[in-house]
C-alpha cells in the first residue's frame, strides 16, 4: 500500500508535466487538426531557455519559468507562421510531414549550437523531503504539481471566459462559421500555438529541475508520451489532456515500480494501441452527431 501511494505521488508529478505538454498537442489539434510533432522539441527548447537564464543570468525559478514560457510562445508563433500557415489548404499529410521536419530541424539546430552532451540544471528549488508516514514527498514534486495546476486553471479561465478563448473554441468548432462572426482565424491560430508552446516551455523547465539533466533530444520521448496522453484523453479536449497526462504519468511509475522500468515506455505505447482499438475517440473525445 505504501509503495502504491509512493508511486502515485511520483506518477502525479510526472503526469502533470505530461499534461502540460499534452495540452499543447490537443489545442493545436483542435484548431488546425494537426498533430504537431515538433511540440516535444518546443518543450526541449523551453528547458534550454530555462537552463540558460538560470545558469548564465542567475535568475530564480519564477523568472526562468516566465522567460521560458514567453520564448516558447514566440517560437510557437514563428513555427506556425513559417512552416504550417503556407500549408493551410494543403492535405493533412503534407502538414504532418512538415511537422516531423520542423521537429528534426529544432533538434539538430539545437545540437549544433549547444552540443549533444547532457547538461545539468542548477538547483533552483529545494529538494527537501517531506515524510508523511512512510511516503516521501519531495518539495520539487510539490512545486511541479502546484505550478502545473495553476497553469491549467489559468488556461481554463482563458479558454472559457475570455474573448480570445471564445474565438479559439469557435475556430476549433467551425472555421467558416467563426469567420462569419468576424473572428480573425489566423490570429486565433497564432494565439493557440503561443499558449500551447508556453505550456510546453513550462514543462521543459519543470523537467529540467526534476530530472536535473537536459539534452537536445530530450523532447522526443516525452513528446510522444504526451501525444499518447492527448489521444487517451480524447484529442481536441482540454480536460481530456489533463486527465490523460496524469494517467500516463501514473501508469508509467506503476509499471516501473511494480514491474520493470525497462518496460515503462513499451507499456505506454501498448496502451496507445489498446486505446486506438477500443476507443479511438478517447475518454472525452468529441463524437457529436449532426442533427438535420
Amino acid at each position, binding site marked *: 500500500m505504501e509503495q502504491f501511494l509512493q508511486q502515485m505521488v511520483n506518477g502525479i508529478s510526472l503526469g502533470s508535466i505530461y499534461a502540460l505538454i499534452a495540452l499543447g498537442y490537443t489545442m493545436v489539434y483542435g484548431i488546425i487538426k494537426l498533430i504537431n510533432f515538433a511540440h516535444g522539441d518546443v518543450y526541449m527548447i523551453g528547458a534550454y531557455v530555462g537552463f540558460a537564464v538560470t545558469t548564465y543570468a542567475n535568475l530564480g525559478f519564477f523568472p526562468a519559468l516566465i522567460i521560458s514560457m514567453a520564448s516558447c510562445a514566440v517560437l510557437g508563433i514563428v513555427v506556425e507562421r513559417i512552416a504550417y500557415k503556407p500549408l493551410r489548404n494543403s492535405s493533412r499529410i503534407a502538414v504532418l510531414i512538415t511537422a516531423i521536419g520542423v521537429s528534426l530541424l529544432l533538434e539538430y539546430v539545437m545540437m549544433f549550437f549547444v552540443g549533444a552532451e547532457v547538461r545539468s540544471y542548477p538547483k533552483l528549488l529545494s529538494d527537501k523531503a517531506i515524510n508523511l508516514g512512510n511516503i516521501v514527498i519531495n518539495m520539487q514534486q510539490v512545486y511541479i504539481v502546484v505550478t502545473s495546476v495553476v497553469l491549467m486553471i489559468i488556461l481554463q479561465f482563458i479558454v472559457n471566459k475570455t474573448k480570445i478563448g*471564445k474565438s479559439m473554441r469557435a475556430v476549433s*468548432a467551425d472555421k467558416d*462559421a467563426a*469567420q462569419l*462572426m468576424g473572428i480573425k482565424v489566423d490570429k486565433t491560430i497564432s494565439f493557440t500555438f503561443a499558449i500551447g508552446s508556453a505550456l510546453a516551455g513550462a514543462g521543459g523547465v519543470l523537467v529540467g529541475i526534476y530530472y536535473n539533466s537536459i539534452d537536445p533530444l530530450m523532447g522526443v520521448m516525452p513528446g510522444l508520451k504526451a501525444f499518447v496522453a492527448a489521444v487517451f484523453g480524447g484529442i481536441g479536449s482540454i480536460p481530456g489532456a489533463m486527465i490523460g497526462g496524469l494517467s500516463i504519468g501514473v501508469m508509467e511509475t506503476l509499471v516501473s515500480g511494480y514491474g520493470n522500468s525497462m518496460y515503462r515506455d513499451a507499456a505506454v505505447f501498448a496502451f496507445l494501441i489498446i486505446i486506438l482499438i477500443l476507443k479511438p475517440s478517447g475518454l472525452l473525445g468529441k463524437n*457529436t452527431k449532426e*442533427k438535420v
Partner: protein
Amino acid sequence: MLQIKNLNVHYGVIHALKDVNLTVNKGEIVTLIGANGAGKTTTLRTISGLNKATSGDIILEGTNITNLLAHQRVEMKVSQVPEGRRIFPEMSVLENLELGAFLRKDKNEIKKDIDHVYDLFPILGKRKKQTAGTLSGGEQQMLAMGRALMSRPKILLLDEPSMGLAPLLVREIFEIIKNINSTGTTILLVEQNARMALSIAHRAYVIETGSIVLSGTGEELSKSDEIQKAYLGGE
C-alpha cells in the same frame, strides 16, 4: 446597397460562377433561386469572403469589398446565415448569440439585442442555457438567424433557411424573414424552395450552372412559364 459585377469564381478547374451580375437595393428582399449545384451558395460565400473571386467586383454601399477579408466584411455589416446553420454545437444558445456580436463592444446594446432575438424567437429564450447541438433543426435555424442578427447587419445573407424543415416551420421562418426585413434589414435569400422564396421576395434572380439566366420581380417570375416548369412543379 449591394452590387455584384461580372463576378467569376473558380474551384480549381471548375468555373463555378460565370460573370454573375446582381443588385440588391436598400430595404429589399432579393432571392436567388436555382437547382442544387447552380452556384447559389458560392455566390453567398464569395460575398462573405469565404471564397475568393477570380475576377469581378463586389460593391457594398459604394465601397469595393472584393478584396477584404471575411472578418472585415462582418465589420462592414454583412452578415450570413450559412447553409446547414453552422451553429457552434458545443456552446450554449446564449454563447452562440454572444459570438454573433463578436466585433461589438457596446455591452448594454448587446444585451438589448439578445432580448430582441428572444422576442423574435421565444423558444431560444427558453433554451438559452441549453447546448446548441441539442436543439431541433428548426431551433438551430432560428439560432443561426438570431446569431447573424447580433452583428446588426445592414444586409443579411440567408442560405437555404428552409432546408430540412417541416412545411409549417418553413412558413414560420419565412414570416420571420419578412419581419426582419420590415424593420429595415436588407435581405439576400438563397433558396431551393422557389415557391416560398418568390412569395416573399421583391425581386428574384434565377441561377443555372453558374450563370444568372433570368431576373424580375417575385411576382413576374412566379408567373413565368419557364419558372413554373423548372422550379414550381407546374405543367
